[in-house]
């Protein structure tokens, strides 16, 4: 029991837990939409496109999270415009739109790093920095999680419908492209939180792995949202405990824990079929 409780006697572990749960739940809930709208590439892209914002914020002495968020919102809106129906008719596919914005923003980040920053300054964000999360960043992550959950709750039926039949959504007056843009902006908020927890390189795992795990366990949307959020939260708790006791990097351990849950669910699903 002491193994389970002792880590939380430290303030930095409690802050890490709160930050991890905020980012995990936000990413877990959004991840279901990301997976079933076939937008998995978006998570990967968004986490990398935080780079130019991070570099500029670092150089100007501004909040890194604000820089990352600004960068990601620009990315989200850029993808929304380039993947609009008008662009599609001009021959630009969704994945191509994401690829163009993703690589363009990341290249901008690399150039800016060479000019005004250094990789060493940003290395902690490439791999996550959960155990030294600042109070301001923690507040941002909690607010981002509340925002994501509030919007999903308020617009659930419209987001759900536009996800499987955007034509019918448009027919009855729901602007599916605006909902798509809104979803991308929410993903931007969640990814910025995720970068703090597991780093740029592994953030897409927070979006994809819990949702993919939940999809193995149920075929209903609402239980899937709960399961995905719970899986993400369990990965954060388990990953933090393991990283504390075994002196492992917290972000990577959380992602490994999520992968372990996925493998367990996959094996369980196979035994059910067999």
């Amino acid at each position, binding site marked *: 029991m002491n193994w389970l409780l002792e880590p939380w006697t430290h303030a930095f572990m409690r802050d890490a837990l709160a930050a991890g749960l905020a980012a995990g739940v936000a990413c877990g809930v959004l991840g*279901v939409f990301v997976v*079933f*709208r*076939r937008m998995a590439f978006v998570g990967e892209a968004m986490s990398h496109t935080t780079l130019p914002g991070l570099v500029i914020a670092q150089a100007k002495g501004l909040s890194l999270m604000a820089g990352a968020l600004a960068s990601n919102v620009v990315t989200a809106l850029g993808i929304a415009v380039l993947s609009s129906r*008008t662009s599609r*008719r*001009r021959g630009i596919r969704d994945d191509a739109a994401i690829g163009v914005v993703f690589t363009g923003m990341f290249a901008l980040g690399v150039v800016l790093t060479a000019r005004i920053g250094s990789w060493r300054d940003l290395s902690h964000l490439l791999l996550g920095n959960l155990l030294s999360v600042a109070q301001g960043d923690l507040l941002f992550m909690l607010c981002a999680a509340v925002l994501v959950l509030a919007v999903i709750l*308020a*617009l659930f*039926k*419209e987001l*759900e*419908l536009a*996800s*499987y*039949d955007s*034509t*019918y959504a*448009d*027919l*009855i*007056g*729901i602007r599916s492209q605006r909902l798509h843009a809104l979803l991308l902006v929410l993903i931007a908020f969640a990814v910025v939180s995720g970068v703090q927890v597991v780093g740029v390189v592994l953030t897409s795992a927070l979006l994809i792995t819990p949702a993919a795990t939940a*999809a193995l366990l*149920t*075929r*209903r*949307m609402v239980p*899937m949202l709960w399961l995905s959020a719970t899986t993400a939260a369990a990965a954060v708790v388990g990953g933090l405990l393991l990283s504390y006791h075994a002196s492992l990097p917290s972000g990577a351990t959380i992602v490994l824990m999520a992968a372990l849950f996925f493998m367990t669910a996959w094996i369980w699903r196979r035994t059910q079929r067999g």
Partner: protein
Amino acid sequence: MKDTALSYGGRHLHAPDPSAPALALHSVAAGHPGAAPVLHDVNFVLPAGKRFALVGPNGSGKSTLLKTVAGLLPARGGDIRVFGLRVGACHHRTSYVPQRQSINWDFPVDVARFTLAGRFVHTGWLRRPSAECHAVVDGVLASLGLTEIARRPIGELSGGQQQRLLLARAAAQESDLLLLDEPLNAVDAASRVLVGALLDRLQTAGKSMIVSTHDVGIHDLPFDEVLSIEDGMVRGGAR
């Protein structure tokens, strides 16, 4: 529509003209934006309560015309009136039943929930569908033989069941004008009978409909008029 402030479309919605025909097209050109129109000078009137067939080979522009009437594509010219109003001014009274390929069937939603989406236009933003909405859905599912599979994910349905489901959603919407895009294409005989019976009931209840098909012979349905697409023109129907 109880509250236009929370309705989809908000202040753009208007009450229809009760004396107007269900649909009136005058000199309409239709096509996808950025491409040449595939249909020119389309003129016909669909009186309320009538059922028209729209016949033409694949690629002739049937879907394009139905989507233009539904407001999913902008008209490339001419004038379209739905119950006397411009397109989009009373979209809760219009339903478009697409071909099956346009749906993401892998999405985790079940048959009942999918059908319930037909009530969303009457529910609007920030509200949950009422008990009355669920009762309408139950009735529609029963009429199409889908009650037994109401909790089944849509991805596990056969082609005929998927087509019935699309019609169930349109019926749940209780719209007055139905635009059906190849509703019996690749559908099994049992589904065909159920779909035909539902369309008969809807017409008896005063609903108007246009049914597109590449071969009117595959339908056992009687049509009040048959419109045919030939060389980019629509022939037949009152003008």
